[in-house]
């Protein structure tokens, strides 16, 4: 244990302390350096030190916002699930960007790549769901003969997928049409899309040749969100007519497995073969609806369907109240512990309290640097770890009293107490640390936050109690005035 008292260790403590204070007070350092007032809003916060943004990352339950867990269903069979999940995350990211959320968190999860967790600060669940789950899965179909279809919008025919979807579109823009009244969406295909599109239009024209002639095979229909289930149900005339009606955004956004919505975007007759990969979607758009569609297409379509598993929506007032209450509870807890330690253990108690402040400063700095997203459960974990930080000190001090009773001098008793309390401190903290590891690995997100803060707390508290308290004790012991039993909280001391 002598190494604990060596100068490199002391230097390390001082460096850690200085760094922690700098990080904790980063906002104030920035204000002073730039001659800003110490309170109120100033530009440039949180400060950026060489690429480091130092501030406390608040979880949704503190900042307010929405958390949604999605399950991905209907994976395309030919692609790797990991890629599909990654692509879905990219698409969600693009869509969420339109909301202007600061630091949206979109993470993949699930043992089989079938989960995505979305955390959006300052957004209601309704907004989030509308944006993320927005339907803009653009699909093209041709029409094929089907004797089973006897009624509906196009008797004798049903739509068939042609392998051309919104994913084959490079870019979409909304412009005013040639008449200068309506709006259209101009799309340019990727090279793959352009090829398929050219082949389709050529086949269309060949189906019933001659200018001005029309037959169902000559139509290339564009749908939003048309599914195989819709096509399979085409023989039901009411169903088919409903799906063939103009797309209904409100219906699509709120659809459940049982609802039937209009999904047709446009159903033009192909006049000539279109090569070159450029096409125009017209369909009585207004400026707003044309722009929405263009944005939707550009953001890409989701390769899978999303099923909502759970939603947590926290209002901003609740979050702000929680922060206040937690801070109050933390400060109250810390002060009570400090008061108790000083009254019960006197000078050692005071030193332990100083070590506790070092501990609190270091943990807060770590939260900012790592960064740890601080949640309510996380704060509770932190407050709790203050209690554990005290434990190692209590073990040492109780042992110290015993050693003094057994007849040691105070400096010798300090040394023996630290040495003998160590195995118990080490083993008991490893047990808690193992529990934290288990929670951290298998827990749901809110539990992980707790495990992380408690686990960090255990490690730092070990350093603070063993290294910092011991060093402070050793330094104080050099002044003989402090060796008085009353100050050390012991009854009697054998004088040497």
């Amino acid at each position: 244990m002598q190494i604990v008292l060596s100068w490199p260790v002391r230097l390390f403590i001082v460096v850690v302390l200085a760094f922690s204070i700098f990080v904790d007070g980063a906002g104030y350092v920035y204000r002073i350096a730039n001659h800003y007032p110490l309170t109120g809003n100033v530009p440039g916060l949180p400060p950026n030190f060489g690429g480091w943004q130092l501030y406390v990352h608040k979880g949704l339950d503190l900042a307010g916002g929405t958390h949604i867990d999605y399950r991905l269903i209907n994976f395309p069979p030919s692609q790797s699930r990991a890629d599909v999940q990654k692509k879905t995350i990219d698409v969600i990211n693009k869509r969420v960007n339109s909301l202007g959320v600061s630091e949206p968190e979109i993470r993949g999860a699930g043992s089989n790549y079938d989960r995505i967790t979305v955390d959006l600060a300052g957004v209601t669940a309704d907004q989030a769901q509308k944006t993320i789950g927005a339907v803009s899965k653009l699909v093209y179909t041709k029409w094929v003969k089907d004797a089973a279809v006897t009624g509906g919008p196009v008797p004798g025919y049903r739509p068939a997928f042609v392998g051309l979807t919104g994913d084959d579109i490079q870019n979409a823009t909304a412009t005013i049409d040639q008449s200068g009244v309506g709006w259209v969406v101009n799309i340019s295909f990727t090279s793959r899309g352009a090829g398929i599109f050219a082949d389709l239009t050529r086949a269309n024209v060949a189906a019933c040749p001659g200018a001005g002639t029309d037959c169902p095979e000559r139509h290339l229909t564009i749908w939003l969100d048309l599914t195989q289930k819709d096509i399979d149900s085409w023989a039901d005339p009411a169903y088919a007519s409903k799906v063939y009606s103009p797309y209904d955004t409100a219906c699509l956004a709120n659809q459940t497995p049982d609802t039937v919505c209009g999904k047709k975007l446009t159903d033009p007759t192909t006049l000539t073969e279109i090569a070159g990969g450029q096409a125009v979607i017209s369909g009585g758009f207004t400026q707003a609806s044309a722009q929405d569609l263009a944005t939707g297409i550009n953001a890409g379509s989701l390769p899978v369907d999303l099923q909502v598993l759970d939603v947590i929506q926290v209002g901003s007032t609740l979050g702000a109240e929680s922060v206040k209450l937690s801070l109050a509870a933390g400060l109250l807890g810390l002060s009570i512990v400090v008061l108790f330690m000083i009254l019960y253990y006197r000078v050692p108690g005071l030193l332990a309290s100083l070590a506790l402040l070092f501990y609190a400063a270091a943990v807060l700095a770590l939260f900012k640097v790592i960064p740890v997203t601080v949640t309510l459960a996380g704060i509770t974990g932190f407050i709790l770890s203050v209690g554990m930080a005290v434990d190692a000190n209590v073990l040492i001090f109780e042992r110290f009293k015993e050693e003094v009773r057994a007849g040691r001098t105070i400096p010798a008793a300090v040394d023996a107490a630290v040495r003998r309390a160590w195995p118990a401190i080490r083993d008991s903290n490893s047990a808690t640390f193992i529990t934290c590891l288990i929670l951290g690995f298998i827990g749901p997100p809110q539990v992980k936050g707790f495990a992380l803060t408690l686990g960090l707390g255990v490690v730092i508290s070990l350093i603070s109690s063993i290294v910092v308290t011991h060093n402070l004790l050793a330094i104080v012991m050099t002044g003989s005035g402090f060796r008085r039993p009353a100050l050390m909280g012991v009854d009697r001391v054998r004088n040497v």
Partner: protein
Amino acid sequence: MSDIAQGKQSADITSDASPAVSPQREPRVRRLNIIGRRNLFFAISLLIIIPGMYSMVTRGFLLGIDFAGGTEFTLNFSNQPSVAQVEQAVAAETIHGQSIDGSVIQTGNGDFLIRARPMLPQEQKVVEDDLQNKLGPMVVRQVLEVGPTIAGETIQFALLAVVLASVAILFLLAIRFHNLPGGWRAGFQFGGSALAALLHDVFLLTGIFSIMGKVLNWRIGEIDSFFVVAVLTVVGFSVHDTIVVFDRIRENLRVSQRLSFEQVVNLSIMQTAARSIITSFTVVLVLVAILIAGGSTQKGLALALLIGIVSGTYSSIFNAAPLLVVWRRLQPLR
């Protein structure tokens, strides 16, 4: 390194006036015979655990939203309607012609908690707008929506975590204590006793929550994922206290060859009880602070931790070490 250090300490202690060989130096509490009255202490534990277990088996738990599944709105109306008014408005709510099966609770700070069946975010919005039309301006403070998948997973996780933590701790102790006389058998006696004390705390805590939630119908007795956090933390803390006692037993076994195993255990309990009680006391102070000043979500967590930590301290002093003595009697080392 630790072995050398311990070798040195035993030399120190035997050459010094060690506590074990100079009883006149020991405070009067040392005379308390905990091991001798172990059956009394076991009985006290069972007195609390058995009703709790009975309640768990027959009544189950009051499930929070993340275990039960469904939707929970936390709303604050500026017109301060009565509970009856809110209940009436909620009862009239339908989605696609079906009732939302809502129940209404008013919390301490005037918020209304409305529990309903699971619904999509769009449907939640409809319900919110509708309630606002009926009851006047309101603030949506929180909406929790948990589907059956997540609810099932959280329960699975809870069980898995307790089992994993228990096994990990059993082996950690077995490894740390197997270098005593008796080898691995002794190691597992220590580990097993600590595990028993730990399960004591888990059952006591869950039992009390079952009674609070289902027998007394207190909302604070609700089981949610924070409760799982509490149980697991209690597991960690309980073992904390137990290890401190066991560690002292290990140390005393090395230095006090003249004492019987029971005497060594009793002495070790006495030597560490002050520390266990003081540490728990400081943690209890912190938890009471959270209970008084914390937000409503933290209160359930704080109460669970409070019960668990008091139980953990009790079990480490009055159950774990006495159990070790009983085990040693049933299965002597040789």
